[in-house]
């Protein structure tokens, strides 16, 4: 952690309101972006964002600087995403990753969920333009909303936010092998859901 950032945190811990508002300004996009990626709903993401910074304000004295500040911050926002899920339809929206239609979606599949004797049609080219069109966004939203929350969070932390397996494990209190296992299942689950759209 850069010294200036640690000093900013120390000032906020001592009750400096300007330092705290600067912390909010620095991390607001990270928290809102992550919350949106998990919830796929701007209103829920907004509520999660506020709950997270209220928690940060009240618990900042507990941050001891031994971990990265972002690790501590992700731990709080992940907990708030989980609490928000319990209060919302997100719980109902996801399916069991082990159920038919979940990870193992066809009989005779191999360890990655592939039919052993089937062909695998190639996917169409992904859009390289800056603007992702709304139809594709809808497909991506729908697929990830069906992914159970614990797998969804691992996928977002590792593959979208780019955190290491070790840091993801610290945030979620999971072993590295457990993180890797959930990540692989999440990728396969999402791939299966996107497959009809990407092959037609």
């Amino acid at each position, binding site marked *: 952690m850069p010294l200036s950032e640690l000093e900013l945190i120390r000032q906020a811990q001592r009750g400096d309101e300007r330092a705290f508002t600067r912390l909010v300004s620095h991390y607001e996009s990270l928290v809102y972006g992550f919350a949106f990626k998990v919830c796929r709903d701007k209103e829920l993401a907004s509520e999660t964002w506020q709950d997270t910074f209220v928690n940060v304000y009240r618990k900042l004295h507990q941050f001891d600087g031994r971990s990265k500040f972002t690790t501590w911050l992700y731990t709080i926002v992940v907990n708030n995403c989980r609490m928000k899920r319990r209060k919302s339809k997100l719980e109902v929206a996801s399916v069991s990753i082990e159920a038919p239609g979940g990870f193992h979606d066809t009989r005779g599949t191999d360890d990655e969920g592939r039919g052993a004797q089937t062909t695998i049609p*190639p996917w169409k080219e992904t*859009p390289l333009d800056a603007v992702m069109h709304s139809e594709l966004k809808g497909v991506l939203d729908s697929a990830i909303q069906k992914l159970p929350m614990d797998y969804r969070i691992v996928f977002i932390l590792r593959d979208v936010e780019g955190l290491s397996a070790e840091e993801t494990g610290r945030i979620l209190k999971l072993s590295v092998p457990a993180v890797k296992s959930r990540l692989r299942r999440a990728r396969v689950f999402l791939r299966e859901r996107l497959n009809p759209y990407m092959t037609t």
Partner: protein
Amino acid sequence: MHRIHRHTANCRNVAKHVQEQLDYGLSSGAYRKIKEHLERCPKCTAYLDSLKKTVFLYQRYPDPHVPKRMRQRLFAVLNLH
């Protein structure tokens, strides 16, 4: 039949490790056999490509901007000025 069985077994073996390629690439000597398999197996190559594209699409999904009113509302809740 024997050749098909052997081919399937190889694909299964590769399937267990193909996601390692997503995480660590195939530069390591340990993955040379996987790379060799991918070069001659269109099915596994297509599968790996689709996994890569799955990750890529979610990475490309744009983040929404933080509305200004959210910060104002937060500071009001915390009684900060």
